[in-house]
Each structure stands twice: as C-alpha cells, then as structure tokens.
C-alpha cells in the first residue's frame, strides 16, 4: 500500500513538471521574436483536400434554413 502511495506521489510530481514546462514555454515566445514566429507560420502550407463526409455525421438543417439557401441560390443563378 505504501508503494502505491509513493507511486501516486511520483505521478503528481510528474504532472507538476508538465505544468512547469508549460509555464516556462511562455518565455519561448518572449525570447524568440514574433517576426520569426510569423515566418514559421507562413511556411505552413494550409491546403488540405476536401473529402465527402459520412452522411450520418451531417446534421440536418431546418426547413427555414433550407428555404433561405434555396432563395439565395435562385438569386445567384439569375446572375
């Protein structure tokens, strides 16, 4: 039983280390320039493919919303 408590205490210390790591991480932003970070963000090529969804995952919309979409489409089709 004692060993179990020791292990749990160790676990809590590990979590504390995690928390400390995160708070130290904030300094990372302070230490590196924001402009350098912007350059890193810019290198991310945000271009994913669009795959069709599982129809079961698409939530149905109300009749009112469907009507608005239809009216809008009708106006765009006349353009």
């Amino acid at each position, binding site marked *: 039983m004692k060993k179990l408590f020791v292990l749990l205490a160790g676990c809590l210390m590990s979590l504390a280390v995690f928390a400390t790591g995160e708070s130290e991480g904030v300094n990372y932003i302070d230490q590196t320039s924001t402009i350098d970070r912007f350059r890193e963000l810019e290198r991310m090529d*945000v*271009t994913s493919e669009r795959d069709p969804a599982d129809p079961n995952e698409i939530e149905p919309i109300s009749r009112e919303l469907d009507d608005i979409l239809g009216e809008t489409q009708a*106006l765009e089709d006349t353009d």
Partner: protein
Amino acid sequence: MSQRCALIGVALLVWGSAAQADYSFDNPEQYLADAADWRPWSDVLRRNALDSALLADCVANIDRCPKRYRGVTHLIVRARDLALEDQVRLVNRYVNKRRYRNDRTSRPTLMEGELHRNQWRPLLETLSRGGDCEDFATAKYFLLRELGIPADAMRVVVLWDTKTRDYHAMLAIDTGDVAWFLETDNTIQRGRQLRKYEFQYSLNEEGIWDHSLTLQGRES
C-alpha cells in the same frame, strides 16, 4: 500486482494529461500578437473592409446592388434575426457550396520582400472564385461578422491533421460550451471529433494566438 496496477494507472494519467485538450477561447498565455502585426492577415482584413462597406450598401438598397452580390445580400437580410446556432449552420452550408480549389500548386506570393504561401482572401473574392480550406474558414468568419456575431466569438484556426499529415483550417465558434469547428464538408466538429488535430495558430480581427506550445511531437 498492486505495483503493476499503479504503474499502469500512472502511465494512463500521464498520457491523459499530454493528450490534446479541447480548443479554448480563454487562452491569454497563447496570445502572440495584434492582428495588425502580421501583414498577410492585416492585409486581408483591410481588403475585406471594402467588401463589408459594399455589402452594407447592398443591404440598405438591394435594387442598387450589383446582381452578383444580391444572393449573399439576401442571405444576410434573412439570417440576421436567426439564433446564433442557425446562423452558423446556414453560413457553413452556404460557403461550402463554393467551388473547392486546392491552392497547393499555386506559387507563393512576394509581399514586402517576403514569400507568402497562403494568400488570405476577402469574402467576396472567395464567394466568386472559390478557394480551399483557409479561404472557406475566412469567408465564414467574414460572413458571420456581417450577421452581427462579434469578432471575439470566432477564430480562424489552423490545425495539423495527424492522419492525413496536412495543415488544415476551420472556423471555430465560441458557443459558450465546447467550441464548434465548421468543416468544409458540412459537418460541425466538436470535442472528440477534433482529436486527430493539433492546433497550430488562430486568427481574428483582434489578435493572433500561437498554440505551438501545446504540440505533442509534431513533425513539421
């Protein structure tokens, strides 16, 4: 035996603490900069202000509105009094009907001596030409702003998809409970559905948030 159980428990606890948390709008420690500080983003905000002024004129007098904008104007007028959740569902469906154009093959653009790979687009440009995930997310943001949703309730979020190993973008909505993520396939992702993603950074008119500090072993 009890030692083994304890070790497994510790491992599970540590693993759980390291797992990607739900997206939070309350993360001041991840604030990176003002929206005006990043040129590609501030530039699209400035360009979209012109679109917003044009749409305001269209709403005021739809008969004097250019024909190609009457559809979106009609949607704005009809949707302004809807409940937030219906506005979000409507805008998600409407923007997702645009032509999906993957811009991976497009060349980076030169802006003030820097090469910029993702060219953010204002609302009316995406509605007329289509675009890909970040264009759809941005168009939903701008259109929901036209419907009166405040800037601080939304963020365009760039994510790393750990399954397809691609960067992706979705619009996140703060509903007061879990954040809603508007996907390009008409689904709205929440909670567990987002586990395959690692949040990278977020944008709105007020700021830029950097989520990289919470990444777990991403290979860029």
